[in-house]
């Protein structure tokens, strides 16, 4: 299951929990990815909607890997500049599989996870259309 937080993710305590949980399971590499909200275009922050049933369904295929374990957390609602909205960690025996899985996982996440991002400007949510990606089959009802 994806761990969901209202607002910014408590990065350090989540990483600590994952690290403590997995450090004695024989993994030699833990590679987290921490997605921090940048102060771009004068935004105050970002805001997120997510559709949990399909997010968890999407994540399932990343939970049955033979040689890697993947943990993930995401925010919903408002996340201010400097806070973290996306956190994951890949555990593998050796580093090279870790690099590979992290990149594949994050790219798949960006392309397919049912999450919608908004810029927060003057307290208003503006859909980040320019950064959004169509899902497979997009436009069939058009």
């Amino acid at each position, binding site marked *: 299951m994806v761990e969901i937080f209202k607002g910014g993710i408590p990065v350090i305590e989540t990483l600590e929990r994952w690290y403590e949980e997995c450090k004695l399971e024989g993994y030699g590499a833990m590679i987290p990815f921490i997605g921090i909200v940048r102060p771009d275009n004068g935004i105050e922050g970002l805001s997120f909607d*997510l*559709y949990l049933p*399909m997010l968890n369904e999407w994540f399932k295929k990343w939970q049955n890997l033979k040689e890697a374990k993947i943990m993930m957390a995401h925010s919903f609602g408002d996340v201010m500049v400097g806070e973290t909205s*996306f956190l994951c960690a890949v555990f593998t025996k050796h580093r090279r599989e870790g690099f590979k899985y992290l990149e594949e996982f994050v790219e798949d996440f*960006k392309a397919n996870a049912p*999450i919608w991002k908004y810029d927060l400007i003057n307290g208003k949510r503006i859909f980040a259309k320019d950064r959004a*990606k169509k899902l497979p089959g997009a436009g069939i*009802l058009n």
Partner: protein
Amino acid sequence: MVKVEFLGPIGKKPVEVEAGSLKELKEILNKDDSLKPWLENSAVAVNDKIVQDLDVELKNGDRVVILPPVCGG
């Protein structure tokens, strides 16, 4: 009846419609001009599974969700 939900930025309340197939649903939704820009780039899931063509029958109680372009992280 089929329940249709509009996710994320579409910002429209769910509706219940009579539609025996995705083709019928397409006709119904296209009557709403405010939806048209979204239908151009949105994907469709039936009972939370993405479908990629219109040859899908709908039955009473099915749930359809309209998914605009995504951007997590």
